[in-house]
């Protein structure tokens, strides 16, 4: 059996897992506050827009969104298999394509800001 190309998908998965662990809980907390009706000052249009306008801001936002999407997609792929869904290639294609589309969309939106 030849060496696997799995690192292509696994490396971003691992990176994304780390990003999710460090960033997603606090981001969820922020929008959760918004959901409760207490929008934090930083989530106002001005500050968000300013942040997303900066090059560093774009990079951070894109990094978090794209890697988290990829990581979730990859893990979801494994989960489908674990639940007994054996059409792995199909599942993988759908999920990875979805993650890529999500990332491209995020990039396009960011460029428009």
């Amino acid at each position, binding site marked *: 059996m030849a*060496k696997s190309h799995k690192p292509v998908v696994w490396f971003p998965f691992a990176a994304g897992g780390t990003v999710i662990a460090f960033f997603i809980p606090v981001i969820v907390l922020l929008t959760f506050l918004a959901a409760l009706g207490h929008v934090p000052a930083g989530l106002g249009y001005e500050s968000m827009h300013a942040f997303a306008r900066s090059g560093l801001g774009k990079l951070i936002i894109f990094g978090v969104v794209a890697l988290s999407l990829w990581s979730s997609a990859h893990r979801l792929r494994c989960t489908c*298999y*674990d639940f007994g869904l054996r059409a792995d290639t199909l599942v993988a294609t759908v999920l990875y394509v979805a993650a890529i589309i999500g990332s491209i969309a995020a990039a396009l939106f960011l460029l428009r800001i």
Partner: protein
Amino acid sequence: MTTPLKERLVQLEVLRYNPDTDTEAHFQRYEVVCQEEWVVLDALNKVKADIDPTLNYRWSCHMAVCGSCGMMINGEPKLSCHAFLRSYEGVIRVEPLAHFPIERDLVTAPDDFMEKLKRVKPYVISKQKKPIEEGEHKQTPAQLMKFRQYSMCINCMLCYAACPEYGLEPEFIGPAALTLAHRYNLDSRDGGRKERQEVAATLEGVWTCTFVGACSEVCPAHVDPASALQQMKITSSIDWIVEHLIPGGKS
């Protein structure tokens, strides 16, 4: 310390299968008086000696080092010589190791594991052959400690019985064999990592592992195969990047 040993009536429910007469496995109930400090293996031995000589299982050392007596005890992979009766209440259910074909009763066929073990080349592949007359390879205690934990595997296969990915995907080389590959990769005397990667860095190798972590939880020798496989995934990924993305990296 002079109190007499406490006795206890133990109920065992043992999976039986005799290919000469059975098409299916079935449970058989035994009641046997045991000492409170005994292990499940002692109870089985008493059943075999006094009640039913036709009950079959493997065992030898009774000190958790030979790796013969792995069984599922109340659904958990255990060495029966290291499963203390005091840890169990009620009926104790004893089954053969999961994920291996049952030859008879509690005896499973480990052929698949043996074949995989051989495939990962678990032996020193020297960088440069050194004659015996030149003495030992220098290896500092730190270099030894780097791999020692992973050399403790007793090949009991409990990790295979615990690993759902091996159960679902029998092609998976599995925790113990890959961990031994890692053990030699980490050994300062070895130069064979590249050869082993041909097996370990495949889909059947570390890439089937989804890091359930059950292997490490059930390991009676405290080996932690899950950590070995995670580390191998990282090094395999780095290998891949070097081979595919760095010009001239593919040697």
